[in-house]
């Protein structure tokens, strides 16, 4: 299956017309948008592991995205192929991150990142929708791939749930969006993995989003995820909470996010460990230049590691953890946007992160200062993102939850402008 997915993903990428003249192709009531992107980046971490500095280069977040809709999105398809399984098999240096068998390196996503069909009906400002497919669970905040920074926040597995077989119902009024979803609890175990059919619909989540003023969004969500880290079941269950405030100005030149997330592990009805994250990030654009700042404080479970110190057993061999560490990370970013062709954009960037880590349990089988060689880590990255065709948009919402009107992306907020404001902003205005 993995080989077929890999071959299919490559074939699809090759078919994207490099000289595409526009982002939207219209056939009668149908509209199709296609886009592709990739980021080349070099990262140096000091220390990365066992007192050693590492410098590595990657092609990260290589994706092909498609949005197809009929009758102003009454019927819509959202798809994304992700090639990280090919380009990022060893994982990307990202101090503190963990999940899906990787630690201190971000794991590659699955080839079929998202494929969701949604049906919606609108009644003025109100509407109903139903979405079905593989994609994002109605929980938490936007996927980090659709936010300002190249390096992921390490709370990714606390604050988002993705790459699941999902069924999502949504109800929208002028100021409130309610979503509820069923999905499979098991996380992917490799880029070619598909949701475990025996686990379909064993987990659920709900999200309430308030839109109290045009440039603001407040969300709160809750999820019960059954045995996410053991695909056959029987592992610890996760009860997850998330709350956030998101602001973006009308000109799409400034953005801010304040987020709180917590995952509490349960074995049966017994509460075991809780992992909490607080994150604040902001981004602003000044002409072609943009800058961003992010602060994050996140608790991480520390697990036994394999001979490759950046990997952990998948699944774990019992219900215990080696320790729990608290990561405080301050990240700054500078970038510039260029458009050498109408549908092609280029964004060189630099990111610098200062990281402090400390154990929260004592004694612990994981002493960060001992393991890394220091309790303070520096990370610097240089790279450039190339995007073709449709710009990367906000990810994680479907149907009426994704936009205030038919055919519109999320109400008043269009993340396509986060990285390349020019063509993306023009398209957003056209759609409105």
């Amino acid at each position, binding site marked *: 299956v993995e080989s077929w997915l890999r071959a299919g993903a490559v074939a699809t990428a090759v078919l994207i017309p490099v000289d595409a003249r526009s982002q939207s192709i219209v056939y009668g009531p149908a509209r199709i948008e296609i886009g592709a992107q990739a980021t080349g980046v070099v990262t140096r971490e000091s220390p990365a592991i066992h007192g050693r500095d590492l410098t590595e280069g990657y092609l990260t977040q290589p994706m092909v995205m498609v949005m197809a809709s009929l009758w102003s999105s009454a019927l819509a398809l959202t798809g994304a192929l992700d090639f990280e399984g090919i380009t990022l098999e060893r994982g990307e240096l990202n101090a503190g991150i963990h999940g899906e068998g990787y630690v201190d390196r971000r794991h590659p996503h699955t080839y079929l990142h998202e494929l969701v069909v949604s049906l919606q009906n609108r009644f003025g400002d109100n509407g109903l929708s139903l979405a079905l497919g593989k994609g994002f669970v109605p929980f938490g905040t936007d996927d980090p791939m659709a936010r300002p920074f190249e390096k992921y926040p390490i709370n990714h597995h606390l604050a988002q749930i993705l790459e699941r077989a999902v069924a999502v119902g949504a109800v929208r009024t002028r*100021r409130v969006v309610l979503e509820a979803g069923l999905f499979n609890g098991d996380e992917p*175990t490799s880029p070619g993995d598909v949701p475990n059919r025996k686990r379909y619909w064993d987990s659920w989540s709900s999200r309430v989003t*308030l839109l*109290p*003023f045009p440039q*603001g969004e*407040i969300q709160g969500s809750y999820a019960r995820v059954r045995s996410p880290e*053991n*695909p*056959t*079941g*029987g*592992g*610890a269950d996760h009860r997850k909470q998330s*709350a956030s*405030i998101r*602001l973006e100005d009308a000109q799409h030149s400034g953005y801010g996010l*304040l987020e*709180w997330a*917590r995952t509490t*592990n349960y*074995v*049966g009805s*017994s509460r*075991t*460990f*809780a992992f*909490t994250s*607080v994150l604040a990030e902001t981004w602003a654009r000044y002409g072609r230049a943009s800058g961003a700042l992010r602060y994050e404080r996140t608790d991480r479970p520390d697990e*036994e*590691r*394999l*001979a490759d*110190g950046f990997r952990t*057993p*998948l*699944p774990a*061999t*019992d*219900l*215990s*953890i*080696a*320790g*729990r560490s608290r990561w405080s990370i301050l990240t700054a970013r500078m970038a510039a946007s260029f458009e050498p062709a109408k549908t092609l954009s280029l964004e060189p960037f630099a990111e610098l992160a200062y990281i402090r880590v400390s154990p929260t*349990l*004592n*004694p*612990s*089988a*994981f*002493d960060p200062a*001992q*393991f890394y060689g220091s309790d303070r880590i520096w990370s610097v990255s240089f790279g450039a993102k190339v995007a073709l065709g449709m710009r990367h948009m906000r990810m994680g919402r479907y149907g009426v939850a994704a936009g205030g009107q038919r055919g519109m992306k999320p109400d008043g907020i269009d993340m396509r402008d986060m990285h390349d404001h020019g063509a993306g902003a023009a398209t957003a205005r056209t759609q409105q």
Partner: protein
Amino acid sequence: MIGDLLRPGVSSFTRSATIVAALAIVACRSDSPVQPPTTTSPSLTVFGQGAVSERFTGEVWVRGNIAYTTTWGNRLAPGNAVKIWDVTGNVPALVDSLIVPGASTLGDIQTSDDGTLLVVATEFAPGSIMIYSLANPLKPQLITRYNSALTNPGVHTAEVQRVNGTLYAFLSIDPGGGAPARLVIVDLTNPAAPNQVFTAVMGSPFVHDVFVRDGILITALWNQGITIWDIGGAGSGSVSNPVALGNVITVGGEAHNVWWFHNALTGEKRYVFVGEEGPGALGSRASGDIHVVDVTSFAAPREVAFYRLAGAGTHNFSVDESRGILYAAYYNGGVRAIDIRGDLSSCDAANRSPDGRCDLGRTGREIGHWREGGPPVYVWGVQLVGGRVYASDMLNGIWKLSEATLPPG
């Protein structure tokens, strides 16, 4: 209140500040503190400690005056070493060590009953067992490394036992690579060429340990409890064709390890002790009880009693069958010695749990412990040999302790 926040007159700043404050309040909640276990039983005497500080210590196996300890996980160095100790004196003396190539952690270790072989389980991929010759017990020599596609995810434990005269290793295999946990049995008649004679998927979701005695195999199957198999001791079963006789799901599941107690004083073979390995944080927290299962009928085993140490969790056992004392490694609770003589299913109502099991702690059956106070310990394994209790402590190395004293009567 939320409605007030949304009124037109309320500024964006006020709305945001109110929500930020609410988030901060919610965020301040944290885990409940864990109370260290306490006890009133006598303390076991410490004779000496063999310190290990560069690695975490795993299991212990003692034969004669030689002790072998494995190492686990990743500290200053990876858990790929077997330490060899001379325990003739009070203080275990490190005499040598083995490094197992390609292993990220070592778990179980055991010698064969005739003392000729040392078998070490390795995790993770490539999971294997290392088989050493003990012609010189202080200088084990590698005979072979046994690995197959089935053992590749990792061998969690390797129980080495003889069945009808033939030596076998019972390998508990980790789930991994999309494959579920399983049991693999290999014939060690020719230790240079182990031969797989049986395998089956087992455990939900783990199989961590088994117990073999008198042609009976007892598997600890986590949330499926324990299953009793005939492998040549009770009828038509054999090692290559085990026949299930009975199963019981111990309260709470998480069945991790087993000891079938043969009471040398009475000849009774009534009780199986099951260790429950609940969630923990290595070094500081653990959970899980000792469950007592009456196996008078293999077809209908039933749990009749338990022992709980609040704030700690049990791991591996060693039983003094001649005196009726169970020694339990208890992670952050150190070592506990429990009097297991007599009828464990009989107690008055005040000492029963609501589900009818006898609470061995309440009935005063804990007769010794190590330790309370002082620097923390986290005890993985325990073994009684020659009137001394050896404890492997993940944080500190190996300890040599006195055995417990039985109360009069």
